[in-house]
């Protein structure tokens, strides 16, 4: 706690160079800026593993922050540092994914639900039977595992759905596109595609190869969402997975620091599915679109009820004491 009435918040993130994570960081900066009582934001943002995140959290503790908002690389791996932080009275908020440390607040996108929603829509769209391509993220990473659980849950509900190809895109655009081309080249037909967020390049692959489009499920990345309205004959759905959850995490941390802790330690931000097969869904998508946004950024730049910054502020991507 800070006697001078200004809080310093530390941020820890372990994936760099991915549109989603960049948006998350910008949302954190913007939210910290609009929260009047945050005077400092220390961002530790790099590509590393859980051990590296432990190091970053410990450094943030050393820096004397009042709260730590982190996107955990793994729910179980960070407990030692998080417990130390909480022992010192530092508020810990995990965003995007959960942590198992007692006393930590979790403001998490429900990854399992994310996969389940999209998969169920897809299977429904196929009339409960058919062959699908299942394009996952990075093998061995927590978020991918959570999503796989959701996907398998949906799959169990639709026994006539058959996964013909399962592959890891590594959350890399180029990998995903090449893999889809490879699938198209085999000539083995499939009826739908579920992707773990590498989505518009998949649509591109269909368009470029002239293959007939099949229903495609992706995330609410700006590029994919605009395709949902612009590409003729594309049936698809975007499942929201807001990077702005980072901003919400900052807001939650400040609330807690100000003594307004929520009743429950865990707040799940449940995803929403936007599909383009109904009038209503189309309208939602039209409203959400933002052509000027980096195509890798999720279009859901705000989380109503949580974040207070403006579009300009998140795009400016400047925290307190910068710019």
């Amino acid at each position, binding site marked *: 706690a800070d006697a001078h009435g200004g809080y310093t918040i530390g941020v820890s993130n372990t994936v760099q160079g991915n549109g989603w994570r960049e948006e998350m960081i910008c949302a954190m900066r913007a939210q910290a800026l609009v929260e009047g009582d945050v005077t400092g934001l220390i961002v530790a943002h790099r590509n590393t593993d859980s051990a590296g995140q432990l190091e970053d959290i410990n450094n943030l503790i050393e820096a004397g922050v009042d709260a730590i908002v982190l996107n955990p690389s793994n729910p179980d791996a960070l407990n030692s540092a998080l417990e130390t932080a909480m022992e010192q009275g530092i508020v810990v908020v995990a965003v995007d994914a959960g942590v198992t440390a007692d006393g930590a607040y979790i403001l998490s996108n429900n990854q399992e639900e994310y996969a389940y929603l999209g998969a169920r829509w897809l299977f429904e769209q196929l009339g409960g039977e058919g062959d699908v391509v299942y394009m996952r993220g990075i093998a061995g990473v927590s978020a991918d595992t959570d999503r796989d659980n959701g996907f398998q849950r949906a799959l169990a509900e639709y026994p006539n759905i058959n996964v013909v190809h399962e592959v890891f895109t590594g959350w890399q*655009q180029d990998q995903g596109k090449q893999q889809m081309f490879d699938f198209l080249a085999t000539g083995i037909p499939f009826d739908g595609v579920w992707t773990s967020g590498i989505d518009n390049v998949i649509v591109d692959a269909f368009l470029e190869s002239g293959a007939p489009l099949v229903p495609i499920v992706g995330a609410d990345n700006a590029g994919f969402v605009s395709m949902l309205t612009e590409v003729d004959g594309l049936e698809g759905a975007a499942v929201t997975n807001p990077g702005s959850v980072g901003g919400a995490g900052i807001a939650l941390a400040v609330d807690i620091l100000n003594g307004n802790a929520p009743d429950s330690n865990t707040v799940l931000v449940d995803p929403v599915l936007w599909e383009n097969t109904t009038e209503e869904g189309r309208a939602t998508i039209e409203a959400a679109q933002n052509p000027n946004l980096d195509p890798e950024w999720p279009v859901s730049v705000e989380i109503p009820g949580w974040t207070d910054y403006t579009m300009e502020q998140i795009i400016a991507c400047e925290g307190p004491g910068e710019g």
Partner: protein
Amino acid sequence: MTDATDTRPVPALTRFGRWLADNPMVPLIVFLFLLIAALEVMRPGIVMPVRTGRDGFISTFWVSNLVKFAIPLAMLAACQVLTMLTAGIDLSVGIVATVAAFVCATMTSTIGPVPACLVAISCGLVVGIVNGLGVAFARVHPLIMTLGTGLIATGCLQVYQRLVISVGVEIPAFLEWLGIGQTWGMPNALFVFVPFAAFILWLMRFTGFGRILFALGSNENAAKLSGVRSWQVFLALYALSGVIAALTGLLYLGMIRQPSLSLANPLLLPSVAAAVIGGTSIFGGRGSFAGAIVGALILRVLNTMLTLLQMPEGARIVLFGLIILAVTALYVRITGSR
């Protein structure tokens, strides 16, 4: 007094071995076709769609797809081949390509496509020149030098991307045409790649610069003795490598049409592998771009195969590593060199 040349008759097998050693492309190409055959056996109809009724005896779709994604890999492999000729390596190419793609995509809407591409290429040039200065004057090992500049370029890219979040992305039309367009069933990228490959092959075989690259790698002292100032060569070489990497990034941008902040990074290790599979020696003095092209094709076929193979991801990765090792070991055995 040992000019007595061996005149014993040579057994046929040894002769065949020597012939192979003199024509190392032959086993490589044979291996490529074996892989393709294996792919066809695994997934009948993918290569030869006679039975599935798709176009042609050999699927043009499959071939053009194979060629298209092998092109950026082969271009980055050219950077590795050229630098390895002098016993160097360029580990900054993946990031340089990514930077070029990102810069071009974000600048096109403000300054127009051609200036944007020029800025992107000059980014590659700058990184290349820095690499060259470090290698030539400070004599930093190229591995460390290019690793360091790669890190610096990554940081600069991240700083830059924060400035252009709202600029929107526009991909120059001609890059899209190159990246996704087709002519006679073949990717338009070949319009860039064929002249590029011809240029590199010409550069390596028929120009003084190419001669000197080989010379520096096989014996730097001999080159010095003949009047070669190696700093000039290193500077030009790494600058060229940077420019090639930037060009690759632009082409890749047209292909993937999504300028992510790690767009071409995954091509780095495969570009080294393609060069090595193609018979380029990491110790300098020996290398072939034609081999690297075949190496890139092999890697692409291998990727397709592993993508289509139903097996745990771990097993795919293991297999990928083992096959790279097997090909290079075989190659070393056949050519009797390293």
